[in-house]
């Protein structure tokens, strides 16, 4: 079985990319789909209805979605294998963009929108740095020069990143993503899969219900405003 993890900021077009992928590959592959979101998600029902593929979803609730993803991913691989899938697509709501949900033995796909602003690639550097392929959506809305400037910004973060530009609703340009998914090596040992980078996942005093503002009330990563410009940096 092959694994591809699709992540990116909200409204970047992740589900449109997944939908085109399933539409194009379902004749050749048996695909299983897991959606990891925070509060509500509907994509699992929509994709199951549209393509009759096995789907699941996890809502992380109070937990960080990437944390939730790490927790359930091994089970998800076992589930997809039981379903007889040869391709598992995991779509994760990337929220705070500190983390990168990509693992070994799976293709890392980052989705970002061409209309999201020139600095967006720099803001989501953690995700871009550890992905294999960047899918730039809504490419139909920008001109050639803007495309190239956006591409240059992505390359600033990760010069080696493969970039696919697409209008994901129409499916243009998707052939290169499909090829990358199909060419990626299969999982050899699911128990040996690890995250590509250690993200700053953590359960902090705010997460556990301490609502007071101000460092005086907290423990763990504690900083004053003075000199705090980079509060915490993961490995």
């Amino acid at each position, binding site marked *: 079985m092959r694994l591809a993890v699709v992540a990116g900021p909200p409204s970047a077009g992740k589900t449109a990319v997944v939908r085109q992928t399933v539409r194009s590959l379902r004749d050749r592959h048996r695909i299983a789909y897991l959606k990891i979101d925070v509060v509500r998600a509907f994509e699992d029902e929509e994709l199951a209805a549209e393509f009759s593929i096995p789907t699941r979803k996890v809502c992380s609730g109070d937990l960080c979605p990437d944390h939730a993803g790490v927790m359930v991913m091994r089970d998800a691989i076992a589930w997809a294998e039981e379903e007889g899938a040869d391709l598992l697509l995991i779509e994760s709501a990337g929220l705070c963009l500190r983390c990168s949900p990509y693992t070994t033995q799976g293709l890392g796909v980052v989705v970002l929108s061409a209309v999201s602003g020139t600095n967006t690639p720099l803001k989501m550097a953690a995700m871009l740095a550890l992905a294999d392929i960047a899918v730039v959506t809504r490419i139909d809305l920008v*001109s*050639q*020069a803007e495309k*190239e400037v956006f591409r*240059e910004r992505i*390359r600033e973060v990760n010069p080696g990143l493969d970039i696919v530009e697409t209008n994901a609703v*129409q499916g243009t*340009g*998707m052939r290169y993503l499909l090829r990358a998914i199909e060419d990626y090596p299969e999982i050899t040992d699911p128990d040996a899969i690890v995250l590509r980078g250690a993200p700053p996942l953590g359960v902090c005093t705010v997460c556990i219900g301490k609502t007071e503002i101000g460092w005086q009330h907290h423990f763990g990563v504690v900083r004053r405003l003075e000199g705090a410009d980079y509060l915490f940096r993961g490995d």
Partner: protein
Amino acid sequence: MDPSPIREITILPGRSRSGEPERFDAISIRPGDTISIVGPTGSGKSALINDIEVFARNDTATGRTVLVNGEYPPEEFVRDPAHKPVALITQNTRCLADLTVAEFLAMHVRSRRMEDDGIVGRTIDLANEFTGEEIRPGARMTALSGGQTRSLLVADAVLVAAAPVLLLDEVENAGIFKERVIEVLRAGGKAVVFVTHDPLVSLLSARRIVMRDGAVERVIEPLDRENDALREALRLDGILRLMRERIRAGDLITGPVGA
């Protein structure tokens, strides 16, 4: 930069929105060609230039295929902007890059690995030939008007992207000097494809592709049969332009204007 010579781009037929095969064998675009794509709103004009822009390979909604020099284009033509032989100027008249004009152009030049100090200035100068509202290097891209943005992106496509084929989606909408644009593009030996509702732009083009229901309905090559119509369109356009200028200036137009 070494743009491999583009002798010909060929569009092979796909399907209409209702699934009927298109009724043409092939449409060729060669250097120096001017082609307009016309038809009602929603007839598939933008989809046709999008097919050219992405070098469709029966993988878009229209099912068309686009060849370069009679073959599937090499992957770098499609994927590497520095080798891509076509540049599309969309209908969008907003640039979302949060940069100044000079920074934006400099970043584009850098992405092309071009060593040319004067090119940013020359691009802004050319853009200013296309618009009556002066573009300044320090202006923010997001603050440019529709006409300024369009002018700048056309000038960029000519000088920085230096693409041999330009696709212009409703260039007339943004209030830019369309005749000057066409003149510059012709002088540069570019192949230009206009999606247009403008009679003058259509008549200035050597060929006209008529769209309907998502498909190419016919391709018209008027040769010199439309010369009278073109003269008339130029005359009327001149009158309208003078009226526009005078109305903008706050004049009251009480007598005949221009030719």
